[in-house]
């Protein structure tokens, strides 16, 4: 009796381990394949048969990627928007949160009603577009960073965090004659690194991955982002045969195809996320709990 129970357990465990192993392969292999394809000669990849290791190892894809003004420019725009968008978003969101974290703030009930109503309801894409157009944000770099400067979700999280900071810290600064701005920068921000790091990581990943704004609100070729360029290639590839066409004549000799440039762009897009992943992980269990509250 006892033995058969143990046998059952072994079967059960093997089943679970096999299932999870297969699942892991399904999760990881796509990343791995894209990675090796980016190091393989583009024209050779199109012949197929590459599964575990690049057959014709080359750095040409990366070289052409960096030399191609379109891709290189998109990369720079994406880096710029990620850095400036995160910095400004962090600044405005935490500044407003700091003011609202004062429990004795007058009209705070009105302020919170305004904020929470804005979290529930939105005017939708079309009126939003009209507003952006009227204030001259369309087709400018600012459209990537300005509208997302105040994040209502992180605003509430930051308020909760700031409220936990002991009041004596602020009071002693007040007695020393420090102004609110000085207290915010010198006293509040330095003790708030956990919440600032969480906000920065999530805002940063959001900025880095964002493509909708580049597709909706921008026409200038100079302002396209990395994700938008990838989308463009994918859209074109759905027209049969285009994927086999080489990117341009200069890259033809190097065997670079639009497909190999695309996988290279994908690797370039994924690598920074994998680099910040350990830090994201540290914070996001907290994040998903709050995320589910947001609904």
């Amino acid at each position, binding site marked *: 009796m006892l033995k058969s129970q143990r046998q059952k357990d072994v079967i*059960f*465990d093997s089943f679970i*381990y096999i299932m*999870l192993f297969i699942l*892991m392969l399904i999760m990881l292999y*796509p990343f791995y*394949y894209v990675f090796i394809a980016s190091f393989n000669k583009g024209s050779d990849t199109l012949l*197929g048969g*590459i599964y575990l290791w690049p057959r014709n190892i080359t750095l040409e894809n990366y070289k052409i990627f960096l030399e191609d003004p379109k891709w290189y420019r998109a990369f720079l725009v994406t880096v710029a928007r990620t850095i400036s968008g995160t910095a400004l978003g962090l600044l*405005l969101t935490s500044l407003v949160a*700091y*003011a*609202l974290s004062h429990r*004795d*703030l*007058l*009209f*705070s*009930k009105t*302020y919170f009603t305004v904020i*929470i109503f804005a979290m*529930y*309801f939105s*005017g*939708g*894409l*079309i*009126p*939003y577009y*009209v507003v952006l157009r*009227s*204030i001259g944000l369309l087709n400018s770099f600012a459209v990537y960073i300005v509208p997302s400067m*105040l994040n*209502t979700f992180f*605003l*509430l999280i930051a*308020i909760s965090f700031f409220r936990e900071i002991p009041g004596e810290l602020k009071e002693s600064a007040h007695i020393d004659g420090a*102004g*609110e701005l000085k207290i915010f920068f010198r006293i509040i921000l330095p003790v708030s690194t956990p919440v600032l790091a969480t906000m920065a990581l999530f805002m940063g*990943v959001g900025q880095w*991955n964002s493509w*909708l704004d580049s597709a909706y609100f921008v026409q200038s070729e100079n302002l396209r982002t990395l*994700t938008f360029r*990838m*989308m463009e290639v*994918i*859209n074109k*590839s*759905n027209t*049969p045969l285009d*994927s086999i066409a080489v990117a341009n004549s200069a890259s033809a000799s190097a065997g670079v195809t639009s*497909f190999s440039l695309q*996988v290279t762009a994908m690797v370039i*897009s994924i690598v920074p*996320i994998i680099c910040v*992943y350990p830090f994201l*992980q540290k914070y996001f269990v907290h994040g*998903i709990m709050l995320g*589910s509250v947001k*609904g």
Partner: protein
Amino acid sequence: MDLEAQFTRTADHGGQQHQLWKRFKKQKVLHVFVGLGMIFLLIFSYTPMFGILMAFKDYSISNGIKGIFTSEWVGLKYFDEFIHDYQFATIVRNTLVLSLLKVIFAFPAPILLAILLNEVKNMAFKRFVQTISYLPHFISWVVVVGVSYAFLSADVGMVNRALVETGLIDKPLNILTSPNYFWGLAVGSAIWKEMGWWTIIFLAAITGINPSLYEAAEMDGAGRLARIRYITLPGIRGTIVVVLVLTIGSILGGGLVGSNFEQAYLYGNSINNPTSEIVQTYAFKVGLSDGRFSYAAAIDLIQSVISVILIFSSNFIAKRVSGSSLF
């Protein structure tokens, strides 16, 4: 609105007018800070809300924001037009089918994974699998669609090529460019991307189950499957119900895994259009591509109103079920 109450629970400061004024003057810098945020919300949240009026008017983009108020009222003309649009039935069906399929298939996936992970005794392996499983959550949909292309496209897709080479199929499957595959593709890729992320919440719920229950069941001779069925599942029933309710609240956007719009927009093309066109992508096209702003706003508004009703009623139900509001 419990959330509001939670943040504004302050001591009641009685006082006369001049005392209030004194307090306000003392706080004026803080009010400037909040004011910045309020201006922001006014421009980017509240003005677009007023913009909804254009759904009931003959709005022309050349008149800018002012046109929202000055253009002529046409009542429900554009709503009527949408209902009689020759594509109406198709895009409503596509929206509903895609949303329902996601609830049916994408909702149970993280629960299953959480149960499987909970049965793993080797902590290092468990943590490793979990870490890998939520990596795709942080990757852009564009990249995920690019990965699908690298694997599934008819010309360069690795899977297609392997299947043809091994002789399992005669010619490549047009997974990305055929109306027959779009729903499966969308649901499958959404599960791939978001399953691990939502496993976190169910695994947390399982961790909260009292271990002595398992010990007692083992003493009584319950096998592993019996323990899953009679202890783990009932133990996380509350979480399952709450997440299900939330899923139904956001069903038109794709539920738990969301991203109906991203998928329909990115995977959609002229060939799979009969199954991939949904209300949101259609509104986007007639609005921003064809420049029919009032019509697009009307289409968007219909979906928004249904969504808001669903969100509030599901929140109400969740409140009843869990005893606490989710918002």
